[in-house]
């Protein structure tokens, strides 16, 4: 039961490691960015999971329903900001990949390294 209760957090951990593995193991720069996005998405899930109150509804205060139980809105707001940051990072990353492909003619990390003579 405890395992099921922590279901979200297991998904978080698996996603986090999947993303990290993709970032480390792939040489294609776009795939690295995909990995990075999965990695960040895992953290969004962590924040969204922690704000859930059992039996709680959306945090909208309604006059005809006094004393209603609602989920904590703060992590949702935080993660909205983090999602925006994530999108900005991803788009900047993609823009750099475009420039790299123009400058090197490839987006494979090992080929770029070879061309730079590292």
């Amino acid at each position, binding site marked *: 039961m405890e395992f099921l209760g922590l279901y979200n957090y297991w998904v978080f951990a698996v996603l986090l490691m999947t993303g990290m593995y993709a970032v480390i193991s792939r040489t294609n720069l776009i795939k690295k960015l995909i990995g*990075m996005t999965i990695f960040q998405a895992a953290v969004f899930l*962590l924040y969204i999971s*922690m704000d859930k109150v059992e039996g709680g509804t959306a945090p909208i205060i309604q006059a005809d329903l006094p004393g209603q139980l609602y989920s904590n809105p703060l992590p949702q707001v935080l993660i909205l900001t983090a999602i925006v940051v994530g999108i900005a990072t991803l788009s900047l990353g993609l823009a750099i990949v475009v420039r790299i492909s123009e400058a090197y003619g490839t987006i494979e990390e090992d080929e770029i*390294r070879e061309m730079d003579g590292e």
Partner: protein
Amino acid sequence: MNALSIHLPALQVIIPLLTAPLAALLRQRGLAWAAATASSLCSLAVAVSLVAAVRNGGLQTYAVGSWEAPYGIELIVDEFSALLLLIVTGASSAALLVAHTSLGKEIAADRQHLFYTAWLLALAGLSGIVVSGDAFNIFVFMEISSLATYILIAGGPRRQALAAVFRYLIMGTIGATFYLIGVGLVYMMTGTLNLADMEARIHEASDLKPVLVAGGFITVGLALKAAVFPLHAWLPNAYTFAPHSVSVFIAACSTKVFLYVLLRFDFFVFQGNLPGHIMQFSGFMLPLAVAAVLFGSAIALMEKDLKMLLAYSSIAQIGYILLGASLVSATGLTAGIAHMFNHALAKGALFLAVACMGTAYGVLSIEGVAGAARRMPFTAAAFVVAGLSLIGIPGTAGFISKWYLVLAALEFGPGGALLIAPVLAGSVMAVIYIWKVVEAAYFGEAPVAGGRAEAPWWMLSVLWAVVLLNLYFGIQPMLPLELASEAAAALLDRS
């Protein structure tokens, strides 16, 4: 004046943040540069007044939008943050003063206004990290400054800049995301994001394990951002291939800002709450710091490229700062924090000298600048003096913090005396790698004959102003030392 002075912590962020779109709208490179420089100098003035305010009246706090902490976002400036603000705004101002000439060769004139916009955003982000007292707010500022820094570095003239910045982007994002995970875990257990409130509430948590995990995530994430060995892989190429003026800016301040957040979390938030945390911190960081000093210096010995050499030396200097901090004593922390300031002065001056050489030389390798002392005598002389400060020769700023580091190590008896070995070894290696450049510049045969090609006088005056500050703070070290020792006392007073 009084009405304005209470808003100083907010102005520190708002001035560059508001000038950033202005620079983009001006569209003309001269005007955009003037706006950026004026804004950066204003920020420097704000930082100086904050230092004065902190020294006279202690902690400066500011409730953003009049929402009181812990519910609203609180800006806090103490001695530690005041010193960091001085480093950030000073580095930005010095670098911008030379940027107009230096960038002319590196970035197309019709894009420079956008470049200055990114610069101001980076400045706003770095200042924001330092003044903010809210964990999530720090994350947002961290990402603002990082994204802007990626743009600045990608402006480098060679294509390797792009590969370097991609690596930095991936590693920087992983570091920031680790930090975010850590903050999330602490929030889960405490329900607060305000650092001071966090500190007061962690002990109420029913289980300390998530907080311990959070400590790990935050420490590793920030160490990645601060390029602590062995997480430094992004740094050398990023410093090397960035435009020269950007190298001055980021090499002088960006890693130090992340070290600042690292120390703030580990000492302010976790020290009193997690039993044995500081001992774990020390046991984890001390070997890394020693390794950073030895490794960074050793690689710098072998480097041929001038900027690459200075970048690896920066990794070693980060090691010195961390070494001081991981001794967890008043003297050690004072040494580490003062070294942030002194290293910023020395490395800023060295990169400024490189920027000056960049006006005459295309390839900045050691063979490439051979004979530079005859073509640009003032730049070469400045490089020598700044190099002496980096090595830590008495009479220069670099000596003061290294001296304190040695004193701090000696406090630990014979075991501590062993720590002096890497400190001295690092300095000896610094003598050698700085000498390699000096030897080439003064005694090397110039590959191409050329007459005097000294950098423009205003670049030289900025360079020499920073060099003279190195000497001034070597003889009159009271300002950074007092701020550093107050900061160290505040960091330790938590158990």
